[in-house]
């Protein structure tokens, strides 16, 4: 299947990552989903993931190269568990053409911008368009305005985020990886929105 972005193999696995499944069952109670984070460099994608997966925040966090792979399982109130297999992609321009490698077959895409950077919001819109064009048709899209703790330097009004997300059928939330604000909420909300495999 090479690098073609437009042919997600949804037939073999509605939520997962196509033919590269390496064991592990997929049942109604224990979901396993591929999630990809996209967005401009420096918006805090890695910080969101590290806060969610390890509960850490490193203010000197490092530029991601290629993409990092992490996983985290959460339990929902209806006693289902969701294992997120997270692709934390690099935001640099040179990796843009390689993004399909990582979002291909993803059940969830989290598009992140920095509320203190209008430019990163523009870039987020680019990623949304790209995902609409080339992502899975039933992909769950979330728009995240990160660095909400820096509200004094805000350049992107919360209303702009809400409106853009609504127009594009996305789930919207503002987070702060630094204060951990809304990080777990983000992933819990995503988990709730996942299409459940039919029970038989």
């Amino acid at each position, binding site marked *: 299947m090479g690098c073609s972005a437009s042919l997600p193999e949804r037939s073999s696995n509605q939520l997962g990552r196509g033919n590269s499944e390496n064991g592990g069952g997929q049942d109604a109670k224990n979901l396993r989903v591929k999630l990809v984070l996209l967005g401009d460099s420096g918006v805090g994608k890695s910080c969101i993931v590290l806060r969610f997966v390890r509960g850490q925040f490193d203010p000197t966090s490092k530029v991601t190269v*290629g993409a990092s792979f992490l996983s985290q399982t959460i339990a929902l109130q209806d006693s289902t568990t969701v294992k997120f297999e997270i692709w934390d992609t690099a935001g640099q321009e040179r990796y843009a053409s390689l993004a399909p490698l990582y979002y291909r077959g993803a059940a969830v895409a989290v598009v992140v911008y920095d509320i203190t950077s209008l430019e990163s919001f523009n870039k987020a819109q680019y990623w949304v368009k790209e995902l609409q064009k080339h992502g899975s048709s039933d992909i769950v899209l979330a728009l995240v305005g990160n660095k909400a703790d820096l509200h004094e330097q805000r350049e992107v009004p919360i209303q702009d985020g809400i409106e853009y997300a609504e127009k594009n059928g996305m789930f919207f939330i503002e987070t702060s990886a630094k204060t951990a604000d809304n990080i777990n909420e983000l992933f819990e909300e995503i988990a709730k929105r996942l299409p459940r495999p039919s029970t038989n």
Partner: protein
Amino acid sequence: MPSDTGSSAPHHDLDPEPQSVEEQLASVTLSVSDGQPSTHQETNGVVLESVNQNTQLVMEEQLQHISVPAGEIDEVRESADRGVVWGRTASEVDMDGLSSPSSSGYAGERGSSSETSGSVIGDVVEQDEIEETRNDVIVDEVSESRTPWLPAKRHVDEDDASISWRKRKKHFFILSNSGKPIYSRYGDEHKLAGFSATLQAIISFVEDGGDCVKLLRAGKHQVVFLVKGPIYLVCISCTEEPYESLKGQLELIYDQMLVILTKSVNRCFEKNPKFDMTPLLGGTDVVFSSLIHSFSWNPATFLHAYTCLPLAYATRQAAGAILQDVADSGVLFAILMSRHKVVSLVGAQKASLHPDDMLLLANFVMSSESFRTSESFSPVCLPRYNPFAFLYAYIHYFDADTYLMLLTTNSDAFYHLKDCRIRIEAVLFKSNVLSEVQRSLIDGGMHIEDLLVDPLTRSESSSHLGQHKPPTESLERLKEPYLGVGGPAGLWHFIYRSIYLDQYVSSEFSSPINTPRQQKRLYRAYQKLFASMHDKGVGPHKTQFRRDENYVLLCWVTQDFELYAAFDPLADKASAIKACNRVCQWVKDVENEIFLLDFIAPSVSFRYTLQE
């Protein structure tokens, strides 16, 4: 070169008798002349070397024309505090240097390597579309507000008007052939637009004459140029390193850039000669600065060889076996390293890894902090393997020092490589490889104190590293660092490079070479020695013995190996030669532990004896 008061002997054997200082000075021609250009014109104290000799007249004329910047280099750098500004004259030349945040149209080629055709390039059209969309939507500049998210670059506040910037001993620049800055070791590239334009003017002036500028000398500064298609690389240095060494460093910097972008970046310049490449390298400053740092400590950068972590033969075999297993399942290269040393490495079928590619790959991985956080999957290019295509690297750190790199041509292989890593990890754990690696990192490899004074006792000791160390004696040495220093015959340090294996081993640093500054000085001395031994104009040489106020340096080159050894400056020549013979014997005795041996290449089996 005030430090070169030694002699050189470009003969098969060393000079039969130790010479007096006067005699040594009389035969100093080689070591001094290695800096002399073969083709040069001198104008205003600036010497310019170029490729074609027949363009000398053009050069002279040209130098007079551009003597504003070039002639001032010396004066300005010597007296930077007088505030003379060189290069500013050109700062108006290319005013659009800052203001063209264009999207690149850069789409690195995917792993379309020759062997496997797993990847489809059928989405080129889609890629173009993506790039166009992006053109409309975003402005690709590193915004000021978010710079702290990038790794800190050194001295970003500087530019070519800063005194501190001018006083830096060694600058490296990458620029485009339209004069746009791409990378500068010091200072902010964007502020150096004028300076870059000046460098570009020098290069293109010489190119207009159908020639290619190699080197400008101005006082104690050398300006070394390297042209790689649309990319220009320049080093300005007053470190007295040989031209060939500096040129080699520029080549490595260029190849490091290819590791990140591949040669397909050239197409961006074909589409748009004014293309601004800095956004494409966003966040990679640390990769380049770490490489440049290694030019002053890592012998691999001039030896073009790699080094192994010393390990018991069985331990390395265990690691090699599981890597081989994995390589047979569609992995192109499986490499296990600890810091910059190889634990084991395996290539699929006929694929072989060039030592320079290993150096650049290891530098890329070690300098990118994000690889330590979690397992990663990243495109990388190995310039000596295929400069036009990306391979895909699965990277995982087992501990703070030891990491696994699995390279493949298949962009979909992540989950397979992840499974491979889990298998490898289990085997490494079961056979204690990782703990042995940690132990080796602490113990080190060859300590010159262990080189036996009396070779007769050698047979009694086992041929394992470190086991014949007389413990009491070395303890005493630690207590008296200024007395009984080094090994026998005043041996301070050595590097042994096996030509067949593409590997080298260097002894551990010990007193008196125990500060970073002394190590760097010795490194530079080896580098110079290497360049003079391999000087195509004068060499090749078999042996060289030079004595200066810092060291006695002895170099011995055979078909199979090269030995570089540093001794106390008062060392006796005959004893130094004996010590070198013993080092070679020692290396042979422990070759199983210090080298990664494969079955084809002859190892250290040839016997040589250095004669007085």
